[in-house]
């Protein structure tokens, strides 16, 4: 029995939902709008919402002020690099735990998760000093290493929950037919695991892109990704709202789009499979 919803109720619900949804979204919308204003219009009172002279100027100014695209590129290299490195290390581990489980597998998974709960300030000083001594401070490689480590438990977990859903009967049937391990890996497992790997990849790029503890503390002019670059706007010179908005819009746009595609995986990845 489908429950009937009167048209009137639906209209009211639609109205409330859209109003509240737009309110939550408004700061982002406002940032995007402001990025197309001149600095004078950005602080004009009363503020103008759509009727103003739209300009792309800020997007160029932001790059002139300091090399924006260098930082954008740092973000790309660091988030993609750490995610790929993490996958490389985690795929075998998750494969092994999902298909050749031992009595320790559960404890191992829990232990991996517990490393994620180590607060970063607990190891800030040694990491800073080690990085300073080894020349990893303010390098892309340094950040790739550290982001790989902090995301590795999430990657292993996510992959594990996906691999676990691959029916093992298929594997057993293939083995019966005399499939080699290589065949098993490349022709049976990989195609079935690809969607899970892709979701893990997406979520981890998002998490690494937005990571703002290590990126702020371990980088300066050279390797600073967008998180750290945007922070430089906290001590501004002169009028800067429109430029801040342009820099912010470019920093969040790619990840916002990726995020919208990965809503479902997000729930699963961030709750370690506890809520699906």
């Amino acid at each position, binding site marked *: 029995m489908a429950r009937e919803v009167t048209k009137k109720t639906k209209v009211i619900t639609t109205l409330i939902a859209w109003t509240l949804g737009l309110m939550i979204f408004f700061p982002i919308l406002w940032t995007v709008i402001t990025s197309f204003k001149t600095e004078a219009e950005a602080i004009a009172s009363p503020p103008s919402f759509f009727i103003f002279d739209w300009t792309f100027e800020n997007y160029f100014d932001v790059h002139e002020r300091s090399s924006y695209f260098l930082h954008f590129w740092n973000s790309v290299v660091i988030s993609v690099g750490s995610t790929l490195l993490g996958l490389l290390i985690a795929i075998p581990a998750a494969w092994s735990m999902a298909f050749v489980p031992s009595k320790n597998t559960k404890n191992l998974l829990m232990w991996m998760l*517990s490393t994620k709960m180590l607060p970063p300030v607990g190891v800030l000083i040694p990491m800073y000093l080690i990085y300073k001594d080894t020349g990893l401070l303010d390098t892309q490689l340094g950040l790739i290493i550290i982001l790989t480590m902090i995301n590795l438990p999430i990657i292993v977990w996510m992959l594990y929950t996906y691999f676990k859903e691959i029916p093992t009967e298929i594997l057993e049937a293939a083995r019966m037919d005399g499939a080699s391990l290589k065949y098993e890996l490349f022709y049976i497992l990989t195609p079935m695991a690809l969607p899970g790997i892709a979701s893990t990849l997406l979520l981890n790029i998002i998490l690494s892109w937005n990571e703002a503890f290590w990126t702020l503390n371990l980088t300066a002019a050279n390797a600073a990704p967008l998180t750290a670059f945007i922070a430089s706007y906290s001590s501004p010179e002169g009028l800067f709202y429109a430029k*801040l908005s342009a820099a912010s819009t470019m920093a969040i746009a790619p990840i916002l789009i990726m995020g919208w595609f990965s809503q479902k995986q997000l729930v699963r990845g961030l709750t370690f499979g506890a809520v699906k």
Partner: protein
Amino acid sequence: MATMHSKKLGKYMLSPSVILLLAWMVIPLSFTLYFSFLSYNLLMPGTEEFIGFTNYQYFLTDPAFFEALKNTLLLVGGVLLITIVGGTGFALLLNLPFWGQGIVRVLVIAPFFVMPTVSALVWKNMFMNPENGLFAYFAKFLGFEPIDFFAQIPLLSITIIVSWMWLPFAALIILTALQSLDQEQLEAAEMDGAGHIQKFFYITLPHLARPITVVILIQTIFLLSIFAEIMVTTNGGPGYASTNITYLVYAQSLLQFDVGGGSAGGIVAVILANIVAIFLLRMIGKNLEA
């Protein structure tokens, strides 16, 4: 059915992850522990000496520590309260039938993907600035004196910003759980004459108990380590009014170069986080069996 061969292979495949994570856990943390017993300032190299628990004594009796501890609890508690109540509300709303469900859902989730430095600076300048911010404009328009958010209510302002970023997370997880709620049970209750309020308190809410617990625990882990939002808005001030434990340790180590004191603070932070972690791990462990 695993063979001996594949068992052995499984171990090899596991070892890189295990060894790396073990190293990541043990090496830096032992350094922190070691430093925490030293008098060690980066500005005075070569004067390091063993001083036992003195750093802990200083850190734990410093009035700044109590203020930071209080701020940490207020910040975590405040954000949890806002996001759980607001998130449940949004989830219930988004679960109702209306036009444009998919689009509204996407709008509500968006703030979660905004990087912390961007959301903090956008709120700080374009909304909360006492002269040019949008809130100031509306206050003046309505004839009120605008609030100087980060001078008058610094911690609450940061709580608002962080809540905005985490509300989507709570809403999304609770919504996901709502969608797995047994519709037949609700219909049966309806036939027995249960009203909306009764259905909510006796069927929906108990069903949401588990996802809400998960949200609380996971958010707590992240919220204990809030850093960027404080750094770009208030720098922990005025005074220590918006300093949390994470920021206090950062300030002590990288701004005052007091490696010993900062390390002691770091260890204290680890212990505090561990208390939360124990609960979280138990919770997730239970779900593994289910």
